[in-house]
């Protein structure tokens, strides 16, 4: 069934509309805006669910420009993968917005917060459903921008600003790389349409890959898109923005950095997997994913703050997902798709729950430092229950949800190594090695709730229900997924869940519509296979190493403090290096109009001249310059006046001679049969003259002595500008099209000989200039008067409100 167009529009559009209306709503509802926003998210969630349950799949498209070869359409595509991300963005959105109602109680800037959060959710839904590379890119960057605002929520704190800037620089820069990659794809495929039509890139995946390879562009395109995905999904070494992003309020951390925004990168990898799957794809993403998984897990062990721990852990799990999607060969392709698809769901459930728990701890215990916390289960029993389910899921302990998807990864790496042999055997080893650290930090987080309660920890309040319920809801989801494995072993499958994941797998499977997705099911292993042994090794090693957690942590911290090993150090050095550009600002940003005018005019002139040179335009021949004598005289006077301006000893003389020049031009127009132009020129000239009178007595009577090089510079600049304008006039008037457009205006402008009472097709005026202005090209005129209005407004802003701005 085709998805309903308007339902799609509501899913993506409603959050943006709600974001725009938030200031109004906030004025009406105040604190309760959170619940209104949650209701908006619930509508989107419900509609995504409606798509999912009614089996609406396929393309939704609004065509904007339909010229051949230049199709521009806003198109969305509904399939398993987009529904999954859509569910995450809107569903976790509901929970997060509800949670914010409790969490943001005493925080500043709530109006901006809710508006941006809604806009972010809309952008994420747009990313999930986009079926066009351009649409995808636009929504992708919108998530970067809205997350920039959210991370920098506490605008007064420098660490918050640093974090926001960092995430912006990395994710937006990554997005630009991705854009280049998209352009390569679109250039080869001849369309930006990703999927859903017969010409779409997916429909020609095979020939697209071959074409790119033939041009030597396959690897560049892959790497460019990979950089974009890596930046967004915090893959090593671009992971560094994620821990800093924890400066944001906890609901934001939970939403953006566990469930949604960072999922954009893995989503992209999953989405493009069928399109670009190849040897190179496997090498790039498996390596990137496993390295990230391991490095980030190790860094998480070294974390001292619970949110920092969760942030590194997020990067680590995203690495796992990417590694899963990376596996495409050696008969392990299906396992790869299953790893990625299933772990997106699992990770979102347990990580969002853990972030909410972290928020509760920080809010109620007043500390986020791991060493200061312990034995919290007495005060926060519900949070403790949530954490048991979520943290054991994160650790990959059976029968909790994370276990199953990790099994798929083990299976995928093992199968791949088994089929390819040689160096590929590193993969299962690295997977196990990284998982040990995952186990360690997960248990460490769990132990916040158990053991002795430190004396320094004061009274821990009970959080409001608006904060507890969302966490519980997520834990229940994670728990149900885990339970599904147990019941499946007994032969009872959770049908809808498995069916849904099957569709996600189907969307990421290389053989589109093949049988890969059809077999998805998960269950507790009943016999010792290799992946089971790998899991057992992981948990065993982790259990042995856990007593030495503190020593391990110190080793990690010592390694981390070596600047050459830290990606942060490189980032900071580069940004600081760029910051030196301030040295230039004293020569460019002088605050003087003449500097800006000089730069602007010269740049425009040089570019225009270069364009003429490259286009090799020919100048018209100067054959027939036949000017009547009056015109020559008038122009002669104008030239004399122009020289007189430069020689004028005072401002008054200068202004008057300049007016002579202007009036001569006006007379020239009269001689050239252009009364309208002449009238305008005369009036403007008069107005300028009067205006000069207004300011003349405020100016110093004489020009100052200009320095010689300044004069030379200005002379050169004015000569260049003059030559450019002269050439432009020559070039533009040289062309004379066969059918002149003026004929159309002349025929239609006046009143026709036979006229009825109403005439629409004719201008009905004798003054053709005016008829063109107000009738045939009235839209132009409307634009021009808008410019006048804007100029007036900017003058008010620039001049009159100057002091006002400084006061604020």
């Amino acid at each position, binding site marked *: 069934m085709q998805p309903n167009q308007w339902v799609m529009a509501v899913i993506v559009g409603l959050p943006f509309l709600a974001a725009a209306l938030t200031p109004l709503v906030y004025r009406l509802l105040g604190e309760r805006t959170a619940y209104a926003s949650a209701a908006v998210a619930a509508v989107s969630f419900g509609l995504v669910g409606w798509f999912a349950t009614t089996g609406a799949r396929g393309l939704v498209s609004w065509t904007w420009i339909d010229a051949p070869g230049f199709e521009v359409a806003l198109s969305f595509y509904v399939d398993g993968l987009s529904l999954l991300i859509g569910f995450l963005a809107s569903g976790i959105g509901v929970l997060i917005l509800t949670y914010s109602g409790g969490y943001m109680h005493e925080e500043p800037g709530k109006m901006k917060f809710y508006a941006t959060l809604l806009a972010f959710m809309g952008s994420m839904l747009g990313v999930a459903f986009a079926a066009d590379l351009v649409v995808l890119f636009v929504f992708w960057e919108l998530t970067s921008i809205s997350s920039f605002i959210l991370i920098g929520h506490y605008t007064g704190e420098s660490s918050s600003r640093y974090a926001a800037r960092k995430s912006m620089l990395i994710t937006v820069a990554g997005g630009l790389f991705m854009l280049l990659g998209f352009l390569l794809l679109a250039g080869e495929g001849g369309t930006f349409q990703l999927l859903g039509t017969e010409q779409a890139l997916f429909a020609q995946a095979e020939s697209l890959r071959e074409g790119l390879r033939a041009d030597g562009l396959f690897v560049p395109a892959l790497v460019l898109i990979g950089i974009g995905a890596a930046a967004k999904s915090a893959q090593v070494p671009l992971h560094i923005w994620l821990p800093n992003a924890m400066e944001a309020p906890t609901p934001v951390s939970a939403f953006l950095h566990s469930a949604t925004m960072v999922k954009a990168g893995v989503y992209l990898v999953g989405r493009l997997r069928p399109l670009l799957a190849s040897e190179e794809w496997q090498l790039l993403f498996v390596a990137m994913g496993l390295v990230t998984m391991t490095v980030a897990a190790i860094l998480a062990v070294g974390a001292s703050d619970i949110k920092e721990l969760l942030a590194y852990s997020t990067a680590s799990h995203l690495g796992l997902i990417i590694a899963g999607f990376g596996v495409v060969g050696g008969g392990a392709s299906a396992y790869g798709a299953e790893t990625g698809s299933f772990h997106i769901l699992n990770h979102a459930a347990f990580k969002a729950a853990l972030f909410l728990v972290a928020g509760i701890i920080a809010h109620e215990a007043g500390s986020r430092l791991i060493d200061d916390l312990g034995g919290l289960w007495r005060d926060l029993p519900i949070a403790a229950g949530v954490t048991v389910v979520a943290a054991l899921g994160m650790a990959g302990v059976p029968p909790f949800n994370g276990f199953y998807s990790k099994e798929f990864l083990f299976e995928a790496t093992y199968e791949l190594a088994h089929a390819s042999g040689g160096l590929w055997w590193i993969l299962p080893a690295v997977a196990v090695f990284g998982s040990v650290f995952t186990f360690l930090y997960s248990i460490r987080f769990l132990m916040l709730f158990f053991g002795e309660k430190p004396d320094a920890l004061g009274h821990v309040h009970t959080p409001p229900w608006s904060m507890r319920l969302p966490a519980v809801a997520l834990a229940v989801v994670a728990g149900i997924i885990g339970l599904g494995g147990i019941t499946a072993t007994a032969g009872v499958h959770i049908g809808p869940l498995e069916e849904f994941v099957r569709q996600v797998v189907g969307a990421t499977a290389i053989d589109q519509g093949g049988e890969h997705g059809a077999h998805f099911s998960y269950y507790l292993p009943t016999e010792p296979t290799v992946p089971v042994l790998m899991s057992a090794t992981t948990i065993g090693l982790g259990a042995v190493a856990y007593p030495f957690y503190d020593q391990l942590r110190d080793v990690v911290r010592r390694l981390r403090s070596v600047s050459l090993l830290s990606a942060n150090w490189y980032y900071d050095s580069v940004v600081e290096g760029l910051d030196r550009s301030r040295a230039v600002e004293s020569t460019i940003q002088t605050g003087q109009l003449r500097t800006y005018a000089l730069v602007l005019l010269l740049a425009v002139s040089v570019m225009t001249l270069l364009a003429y040179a490259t286009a090799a335009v020919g100048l018209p021949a100067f054959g027939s310059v036949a000017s009547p004598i009056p015109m020559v005289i008038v122009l002669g006077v104008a030239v004399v006046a122009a020289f007189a301006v430069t020689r004028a000893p005072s401002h008054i003389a200068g202004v008057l001679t300049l007016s002579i020049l202007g009036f001569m031009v006006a007379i020239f127009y009269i001689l050239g049969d252009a*009364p*309208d132009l002449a*009238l*305008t020129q005369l*009036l*403007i000239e*008069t*107005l300028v003259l*009067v*205006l000069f*009178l*207004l*300011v003349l*007595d405020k100016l110093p009577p004489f020009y100052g002595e200009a320095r010689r090089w300044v004069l030379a510079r200005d002379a050169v600049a004015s000569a260049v500008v003059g030559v450019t304008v002269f050439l432009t006039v020559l070039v533009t008037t040289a062309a004379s099209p066969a059918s002149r457009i003026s004929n159309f205006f002349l025929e239609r402008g006046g*009143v026709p000989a036979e*006229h*009825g*009472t*109403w*005439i*629409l097709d*004719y*201008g*009905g*005026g*004798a*003054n053709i*200039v*005016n*008829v063109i*202005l*107000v*009738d045939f090209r*009235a*839209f132009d*005129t*409307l634009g021009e*008067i*808008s410019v*006048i*209005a804007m*100029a*007036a407004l900017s*003058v*008010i802003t620039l*001049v*009159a*409100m100057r*002091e*006002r701005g400084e006061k604020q």
Partner: protein
Amino acid sequence: MTENEPTVIARTVVRIVVPIILVTAVALLLQGHNAPGGGFIGGVLTAVAFALIYVIYGLDYVETEILDRTALPRALPGEPVEDESAQRPGVTKEFSEVLAIGLALAAGSGIVAIALGYPFLSQAVAFVEGIPLFHEIEVASALAFDLGVYFVVVGGLLTVIAVVGAE
């Protein structure tokens, strides 16, 4: 304008000339459809008239004598007045209103066309017959648009002159 008091000649000339200019401006606006003129030119000419008043009579004159408002306190629209005696020349609110009205008129005349089922900014010409003396009068809907242009130009230029001139 304070240190150089304008001469009686200048004041008298402005007094006589400004009404003539204004009438000419309106004439230019109305005849624009069939003869040189139009909204833009008419608007500029009107602005010239006001600029003359500014030059000869000073910036406050327009506000106090023509718009019948107290010149002080001078504040921007919406700006809280902090210091009553602050001699900061303001922007006359009426100018920005003229600007807004003009823009609304121009865009509105286009929207009327949409309401009647024609493309945006379609213009029509109607002939009213049987008028004594004239026999037939041509009414162009473009005049409404031109009027919008006129108001925008007047409002825009006067705003700029008032703000910049006050500096």
